[in-house]
């Protein structure tokens, strides 16, 4: 009995409280499309959605920005979303294996990696080898978690260049933004992040490009979800992300063309 009450009451009461507070609910005629997207897209996708909504006024796009790992956990556990845009193929493949995708994933944009250092670059880091040298001197380097797309790519870049960072000198961020924060907030002397994140913080970091031969392309695949409430609109939005209009907005934000 007690457990039954414990489970039921919060649900009922919470339902009441949210209804009471939400005076400006969406018009029921409109289609509300929930798109879960990687946090490195936080600054660019709302602009693209605005352009899409101008063409399709009946659609309201609602974004849920989180790390690709959190989004993957949400979708795997049944959170409601119509489409996802993730950083990297690994989380998308995991969703595909669990048969949670409602269509083939397509790449909508690409990113690359850069080294960011503190604004005055105190360790004079000029390359991946320089990162290892700074780490050897006891400085802390910020990388994304191996399980986050940006972390898997950063490790790929490092191993391609034959550079090894000792584990004890690496602070691990759960996504690209947390990794950048470790540098901007002063804990780490340098880090490897997406070039778009570096560009977005250019007043607070010094950017060291990674040469093309050593660098990798980070793909952002998008897909409609199997559990989508509005499949038709979700398909159009994913297609729109590949349109020239959307690609121009991606390019303005520092992403690479398809």
């Amino acid at each position, binding site marked *: 009995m*007690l457990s039954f*009450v*414990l*489970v039921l*009451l*919060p*649900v009922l*009461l*919470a*339902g009441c*409280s*949210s209804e009471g*507070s*939400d005076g400006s609910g969406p018009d029921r005629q409109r289609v509300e499309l*929930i798109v*879960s997207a990687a*946090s490195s897209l*936080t*600054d660019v996708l709302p602009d693209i959605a605005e352009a899409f909504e101008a063409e399709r006024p009946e659609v309201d796009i*609602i*974004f*849920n*920005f*989180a790390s690709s*790992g*959190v989004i993957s*956990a*949400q979708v795997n*556990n*049944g*959170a*409601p*979303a119509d489409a996802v845009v993730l950083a990297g193929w690994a989380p998308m493949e995991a969703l595909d294996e669990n048969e949670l995708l409602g269509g083939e994933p397509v790449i909508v944009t690409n990113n690359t990696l850069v080294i960011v250092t503190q604004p005055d670059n105190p360790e004079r880091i000029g390359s991946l080898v320089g990162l290892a040298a700074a780490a050897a001197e006891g400085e802390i380097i910020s990388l994304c978690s191996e399980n986050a797309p940006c972390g898997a790519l950063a490790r790929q870049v490092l191993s391609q260049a034959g550079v090894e960072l000792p584990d004890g000198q690496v602070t691990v961020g759960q996504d690209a*933004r947390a990794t*950048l*924060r470790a540098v*901007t907030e002063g804990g780490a002397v340098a880090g490897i992040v997406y070039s778009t*994140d570096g560009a*977005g*913080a250019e007043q*607070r970091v010094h950017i060291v490009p990674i040469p093309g031969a050593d660098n990798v392309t980070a793909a952002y695949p998008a897909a409609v979800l199997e*559990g989508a409430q509005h499949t038709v609109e979700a398909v159009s939005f994913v297609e729109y992300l590949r349109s020239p209009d959307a690609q121009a907005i991606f390019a303005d934000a520092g992403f690479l063309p398809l």
Partner: protein
Amino acid sequence: MGRSPVRLRSPWYVTVFVGCAAALFVLPILGLGTRVSWTTLGSDLASSQAGEAFRLSMVTSLSAAVLSFVLGLPLAWTLARRQFWGKSILRGFVLLPLVLPPVVGGVALLSVFSRRGYVGGWLYDIAGIDLPFSTAGAVLAATYVSMPFFVITVEAALRSLDRAFEEAAATLGADSRETVTRITIPLVAPAVGAGLLLSWARALGEFGATITFAGNIVGRTQTLPLAVYEQIEANPSAGYATSSILVATSLVVFVVLHGRLGDPSRALTRSSEDRP
């Protein structure tokens, strides 16, 4: 309690430790203050989603505090006063949200309350209620992580309560309802107040279970901590301005309310004075 006529003087080393402890709590907040761009505070807040996030934070944290009270008081009472099989196991479960890593708490809630979870599927089928990615979901996540604070505080107060007061009332002819309303409730009222304050504060700062279970959706589930998280890299001045709202609101509430919680002996005197 609080009636000793003797004023004890602290030895010097206590003063030093108090100074260190106070510095540990005060300095970081002052440091945060140096990051806030005070001259552009107004425009930073206007340009950010701070207003909407503030409204949502108030709705979710106050709802979570009310739910903690409504559900947590009977639970604390049961844990403190009743003997039943599995009581310590139940208490263990109540405390678990305190240690669950952020995302794990959210996934645990999703596994039950999402449309594919065993309670959520049933809720959706019969009532059309979908908790994840909704404000109600944010309230549920906040309640899950904040109610333990209410329950431990109140349970501890109930257990340390001197049962002699209640027994005396019963001997003097009070029935059990009278005993509870005239003796027990006034005696634990300060602990209930403290528990409410703690659970509200925890709900206000809640991040991990919320972003996982309720998502990070502007105007629906993006509370102040989530808004700060989203803004702090791309637009740090807006992020710090938003944090300052969180800090200022909580500080005002703590300063104003905590002083009024009082102590149990005063509570009992006051209630006997109130007698008609």
